[in-house]
């Protein structure tokens, strides 16, 4: 019997349900067609809900799915129906916050695609083969963010919005410590 909590997949979809990044850890969806069908079902089931302030949750095909949206990004974490939804929620929250940190507070689809390498690294740092590796957003962001734009680059080379984002990030980091 598998006792440690297991995550079956992590999905990041856009506002039309298209896959931006996805990682599957279970054999429940063996083909890409099956994966896409699952993503479509998840997306259409959650599309009309407001998951912008709190982590939301639903059940689909004997799975528990927790989800949270920001801008045009839809984050999902799936686990089996016996799974503790609060553990899944902590994984989702860790992922969500880490991506937000890495994208310096402007998390949206465009920013995510521009930094897709960071998103992939983020996935890799949260779950290893279905097992929870880390849920602390700061640790995840730190580990994944090694080659993000050098935060110490002179301000003159950054746009105003980037500069603001950097400032905001510095602030949140110091608050979170």
């Amino acid at each position, binding site marked *: 019997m598998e006792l440690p909590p297991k995550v079956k997949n992590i999905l990041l979809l856009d506002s039309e349900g298209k896959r931006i990044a996805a990682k599957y850890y279970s054999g429940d969806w063996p083909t890409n067609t099956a994966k896409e069908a699952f993503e479509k079902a998840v997306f259409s089931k959650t599309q009309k809900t407001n998951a912008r302030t709190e982590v939301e949750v639903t059940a689909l095909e004997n799975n528990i799915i927790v989800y949270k949206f920001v801008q045009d990004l839809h984050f999902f974490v799936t686990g089996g129906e016996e799974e503790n939804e609060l553990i899944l929620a902590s994984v989702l929250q860790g992922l969500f916050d880490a991506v937000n940190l890495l994208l310096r507070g402007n998390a949206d689809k465009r920013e995510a695609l521009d930094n897709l390498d960071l998103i992939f690294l983020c996935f890799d740092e949260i779950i290893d083969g279905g*097992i929870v*590796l880390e849920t602390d957003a700061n640790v995840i962001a730190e580990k994944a963010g090694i080659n993000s734009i050098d935060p110490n680059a002179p301000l003159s080379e950054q746009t105003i919005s980037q500069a603001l984002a950097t400032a905001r990030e510095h602030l949140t980091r110091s608050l979170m410590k």
Partner: protein
Amino acid sequence: MAQPFVKKDDDHDDEMEYSPFMGIEKGAVLQEARVFNDAQVDPRRCSQVITKLLYLLNQGESFTKVEATEVFFSVTKLFQSKDTGLRRMVYLIIKELSPSSDEVIIVTSSLMKDMNSKIDMYRANAIRVLCRIIDGTLLTQIERYLKQAIVDKNPVVSSAALVSGLHLLRTNPEIVKRWSNEVQEGVQSRSALVQFHALALLHQIRQNDRLAVSKLVGSLTRGSVRSPLAQCLLIRYTSQVIRDMSNHGQSGERPFYEFLESCLRHKAEMVILEAARAITELDGVTSRELTPAITVLQLFLSSPKPVLRFAAVRTLNKVSMTHPMAVTNCNIDMESLISDQNRSIATLAITTLLKTGNESSVERLMKQITNFMSDIADEFKIVVVDAIRSLCVKFPLKYRSLMTFLSNILREEGGFEYKRAIVDSIVTIIRDIPDAKEGGLLHLCEFIEDCEFTYLSTQILHFLGIEGPKTSDPSKYIRYIYNRVHLENATVRAAAVSTLAKFGFMVESLKPRITVLLKRCIYDSDDEVRDRATLFLSVLGGDGTLDADKDSKEFLFGSLEAPLGNMETSLKNYDPSEEAFDINSVPKEVKSQPLAEKKAQGKKPTGLGAPPAAPASGFEGYERLLSSIPEFAAFGKLFKSSSPVELTEAETEYAVNVVKHIFDNHVVFQYNCTNTIPEQLLERVNVIVDASEAEEFSEVASKALNSLPYDSPGQAFVAFEKPAGVPAVGKFSNTLTFVVKEVDPSTGEAEDDGVEDEYQLEDLEVVSADYMVKVSVSNFRNAWESMNEEDEHVDEYGLGQRESLGEAIKAVIDLLGMQPCEGTETVPSNARSHTCLLSGVYIGNVKVLVRAQFGMDSSKEIAMKLAVRAEDVSVAEAIHEIVANG
């Protein structure tokens, strides 16, 4: 400010979404991947190309073997670069490419170097990559580094090694098991996640050693676990230990319950939830054990976090299936969740309320649900409809408001599955509650007036044909049915013609009018419709002699003697030849009875699919099966069949359960046997029954099972004679005897010689409850008052100390085997007294009603006043005798 790319973006913003991967193509990216081979590695550019490759893989693109190998080889060159960001991407792509074992060798040395690097990030990641792609022989080479990594100062490194261990345990258990000292050290780690991973691995290593697991749990529950995740794990292990202990017959105070309860006060919500869930899932949990868990879940119900509300209502929903009374305290909180933004929560709340609600709240609940039905998806609606169906069976008096609700939603928009669920529910209600029949049939009639689903129309027409003629005014259905002949497709028209004919045949006064209607159908454009009309016209126009009547009745209403499954196999095996297919050659014995039985019980209200006249699922099947066996055909009408009683433990070589069939003068035991050993064929399977402890019974016949191949259940029978109409009881011991033949699993052929053998089964008892059939009455008071008051038999009993009133009531119901009426089998919590109404039919077809009043004093002593009314005084006395002896 005005940087070029911003401008470009403005141009494109309206017409097309910007994406750095727009127009990306596999071929081009593979071409680009050649930069990996450059003498001077450009880390930034290489990282970008790897990201593109990962993007392609992530979008479901696949690389051919050659492509993957080529990419893999060039990626390995990137280990020269010292750029940490690039190295990280290299690790990622190697994992995604999952190279074959001969390719792995190329990177092992680089990865092993990284495993011993000074940079923590390199060590951690190199371990994860290497363990993902490695095989057993290589693993032994790096084993000592992994052991070192587990106790590494850096928690990230040690977690990486532990998690890799968890994965490797599946493929190389013997190697990972050698690490337990290091893992043990990890359990003591100060890092929360290292502790979690170490605990997971340690348990996995020892999982087959029950004693070691129990020791581990015992020492850890004393409180050295810091991380909430590890604490959750510990709770799971603890419940497993509790389960194992109770399986092995340890009784007394439940071990570790205190630990679970203390976790309910943990500061992390995930731990509280895990503990509450563990408590609710304990085997045979008592209400005292449940209460603290229910209390914390109740608090969660009003949490601002949807996940918490969902988790709580989901758990309570499960509890309500087994302990509805324990959940009633949460009803008020639950009702406020009906309007929850999150529809999953609302649906769970409703279905829970429908299970725990009492009769008085039904109407209010239905009102709330009506408001909410329009804006939920079909799949939720089906859940609600199913819950309403069971509610209606539980509170037959409320059928009116429930039926109104069902007919209203039947008129609304909805998909096939949803409509079918509603129709099934209405059919079940019509079948179980006679008062609801006429109204329900009319709702169905209205529905087929405007039904887009052929399948549902034909099913309803068939059902109408059986139930309609038995109503007080059958003529009012004719219009609806005949309308189908005008307005529908050929399939529905044909079904309508058959239904009309049934009315004509059953209701003499309608015959002339039906004949006129059928005559009009002879000119239908479809040949099946024409054929049926012609056929039925000639049946209806028959000369009315008794024989012809019987034949046509059999033709119209009779069912196939052989099960459809057998029929299908026989027809498939039939070789078209001179010889006609003989329907009598189809085997009538029901194959795989226990399986079908289980399924039927799983979704008890079987609706349209089930034989309509059967009072209980399976009963008609048994009746048909028994009457097809010549030895038992003369026993008369089957009175009752019990549900299967297991005579073997689960997972033994031969699985046997028994169904007790009660006749007036006889009892037949049907032994359903399953052979679970693929290498064996059993022949001449017989059950030897010793009835020395059942004096009133004498064996009259037995029917052995000729052959019992692997995994294909079969039945053996033993019949006993007993005094007529008397509820004789007794104990029987059973031994299975048979001849074993070895089977070659590759060819499936059995050897010629067999060995005689026998197998001891558990004892079987015939008890008084076997002579009682559960029959519900829709209005208990009327039924009670219609019985002669002078025949009432009252007595009082002390039931001794019990855990709760509900438990005592359940015991009495089980003892008598009667149907609880009007939901009186559930007791409000904290109640000190309760009245339970029971009804049933006793052997000899004697109707029995029981009114049992229970009271509990402060020391939990329970007293019962039992009033019995029966059509026969001696039966009322017999009931008291049963209780007095139980």
